């Protein structure tokens, strides 16, 4: 009797349970589980995407930092090279300036020497000329003094004529 009672399903309950469960499945499926599962999925997706974008941002940050460092290094190298070049240029400018200066100096010295030579020559010519003039004047004065009397003149002419005869 116990088993019979327990194991005999009531027809009414089977029907009501079937209808009841289907109604419950419909109501809950449409108005409870669907929105809840949808919201859960949406939330999980948004959390996941947030985490992903955070990771991405981190990576980008790192890339940016690496880029910055690279740029900085490049800048440093460039600065060094510019400095070096500048020093080199300065040195070469100094060098060439020195050379130029020495050249100019040399030329100036040369010019001065030439000028001095010319002046010297001119002065010597002048002195020679003056010496010639002076010697002419002296000769004239001397001649004038010696040939003042007749006898002296005759002696001179005789002298000339004697020379002529001999030849």
């Amino acid at each position, binding site marked *: *009797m*116990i088993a*019979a*009672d*327990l*194991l*005999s*399903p*009531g*027809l*009414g*309950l*089977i*029907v*009501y*349970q*079937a209808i*009841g*469960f289907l*109604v*419950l*499945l419909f*109501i*809950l*499926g449409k*108005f*409870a*589980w*669907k*929105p*809840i*599962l*949808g*919201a*859960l999925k*949406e*939330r999980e997706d*948004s959390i996941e995407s947030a985490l992903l974008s955070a990771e991405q941002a981190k990576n980008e940050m790192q890339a940016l930092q690496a880029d910055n460092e690279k740029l900085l290094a490049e800048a440093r190298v460039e600065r060094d090279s510019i400095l070096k070049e500048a020093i080199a240029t300065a040195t070469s400018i100094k060098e060439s300036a020195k050379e130029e200066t020495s050249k100019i100096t040399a030329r100036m010295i040369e010019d001065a020497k030439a000028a001095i030579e010319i002046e010297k020559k001119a002065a010597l010519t002048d002195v020679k000329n003056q010496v010639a003039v002076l010697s002419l004047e002296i000769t004239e004065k001397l001649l004038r003094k010696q040939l003042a009397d007749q006898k002296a003149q005759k002696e001179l002419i005789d002298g000339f004529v004697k020379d002529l005869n001999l030849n």
Partner: protein
Amino acid sequence: MFKKKSVVPNKALFVSFLALFLLVVPALSSAKAYSGGGEEKGATDFILHHVVDDHVWHFFDGEYGTLYLPIILYSEDRGVEVFSSHHFYDEHHEKVAYNGYELGEDGHIAALDAGRHAMDFSITKNTAMLILTMIVLSFIALRAASHYKKNPKSAPKGVASFLEPIIIYVRDEIAKPNIGKKYEKFMPYLLTLFFFIWLGNLLGLIPGASNLTGNIAVTFVLAVFTFIATNVNGNKEYWKHVFATPGVPKPLLLIMVPVEFIGLFTKPFSLMVRLFVAITAGHIVILSLIGLVFIFQSHAVGVASTIMVIFINMIELLVATIQAYVFTLFSAMYIGAAVADHDHH
């Protein structure tokens, strides 16, 4: 600060005592009704009475302790008949015949005229319990759903925070690993199944409540639904596995095909029996322990029984959850076997 802390345990203690009182007293009062004559016979009757379906809902003894549920009958000659089950009882609560029908010993309604037959669609105790379970479950689930509709991206609150971990557990631990990619389609079914069985089990533990999920009609219907969900969605490989099991020599198929075919039915059958037996057995154990008190009529047994009843009730809370989990898990596994892509063959 110390004072404030001590308030909470006191409250908890009070609530648990109250629960204990509510748990034991109605059961004792109804047990008394049967303890009049032939105690052992009375005890089995009392136990059975609390486990099987009924046309009245008995809460406690006395004039107002019984809820008479409506009787709905359908017969070919008289059509639909609706009347209160009160008509089957006289003023001394003795069974009487009414309108050509009588209430049998086993609770089934039979026509007095041997030639007549009527189908019983009465709102029985379990049907009433079913409606109650549906209302409570709908209320809880819809309350939770409204939270998600209002603020879809915020953390759960209230009822939603209670349901969410369970829903996620069913999705991630039951549906996803057992069904695979197509799990989403079956989520509403599995969730409804889990919560219905769980809530039914828990409400059934309340003293005075009806043993809904421990009724074979209920577990039968649930198992049939899993059977339908499994076989309607079965793919080619599933049926091939049943009727032409790959890798089996032809002569052996003569044995294998019937075995596989019977297997289609034994799977849901095991679901039906497992839930029915687990819940009914738990109720019988609790009622037996209470029944002992009235057989031995001793204070010592009373105290021991009460302690044991509390203990078993705690276990029943666990069993209620485990059985809901197991039923859902196996349903998911059967469905999973039917829809899976068997690429490992």
